[in-house]
């Protein structure tokens, strides 16, 4: 019983943590779409015509998924989105490092700063593991007592 309790608590804490990370990450991008579009452009992966739409929508996906993950609305759907996004971020970061791109990641701050590199890959990978854990362990209706 105690184990389950701790288990649920852990999942809940992870949800809070991931949720806040994603909400925080979305904010600056929502405020500065043009700068974020530029950051996306610098990765030289997406074709130019879709970059702006992507840059407009992605931050809102991050915000809503993060918010929902915390609030327990569409919890597993949010976890699926966050896990998928992190997976994509890791792949893109690996490609960028492999291609030797010297670019800002545009992760938390569109004004630059963080560079795409090994450290970013490790961080995103850790987050990916955590969110994958939430995705497979979160049982939807069962954890409701802990989440309130």
């Amino acid at each position, binding site marked *: 019983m105690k184990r389950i309790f701790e288990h649920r608590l852990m999942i809940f804490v992870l949800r809070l943590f991931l949720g806040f990370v994603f909400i925080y990450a979305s904010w600056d991008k929502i405020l500065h779409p043009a700068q974020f579009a530029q950051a996306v*452009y610098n990765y030289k992966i997406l074709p130019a015509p879709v970059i702006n739409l992507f840059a*407009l929508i992605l931050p809102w996906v991050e915000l809503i998924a993060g918010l929902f993950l915390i609030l327990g609305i*569409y919890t597993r*759907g949010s976890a699926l989105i966050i896990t998928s996004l992190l997976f994509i971020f890791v792949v893109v970061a690996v490609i960028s490092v492999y291609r030797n*791109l010297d670019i800002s990641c545009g992760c938390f701050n569109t004004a630059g700063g963080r560079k795409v590199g090994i450290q970013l890959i490790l961080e995103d990978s850790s987050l990916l593991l955590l969110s994958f854990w939430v995705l497979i362990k979160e049982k939807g209706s069962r954890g409701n007592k802990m989440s309130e």
Partner: protein
Amino acid sequence: MEKEKPTRKVVLRSYVGSRLAVPLQALIIILLASLLGIGSNLIRKDRIPFIPQPSDVSGKEKADNAVTLAEAKERFDSGMGFFIDARSADAYRKGHILNAVSLPEEDFENRIAEVKDLIPDSSEFIVIVYCDGEECEASDKLEKKLEGYGYKNIRVFFGGWNEWVKAGYPIEDRSE
């Protein structure tokens, strides 16, 4: 998928939508985000175009800080352009745009000290960085590094060395 132990009411209160299939939940979130993302861009003042013109985002850097071959040559002729070769020291030694200064991008930190006094920092001058051509990234990177260093009038000549040579413009060639 779900256990039915908690009453339906509790389930609904604390896990809204948990009965929907997970991919469907995800899809709803993405649709909601699309609405908000597109909607907010429609009403905000600093909106960006949904589909950028070729000269917008894809060419954003180019539009802002690029010089064409013709512009580069004009600056070269008038003496109002300062050319910096972003390629390796080796490539520079083999041949470069006449009077260009070597500042290999990958060795920026070590070399900037000897070059910085040469770089004009006045609005009448522009500093033109170049590397081999369109596909190389050294000029782009060097431009950012120089800007990070405080220089303002940096332009990238994307055509680079290849275009310059092809046009038959003045070079300094020591390979022969």
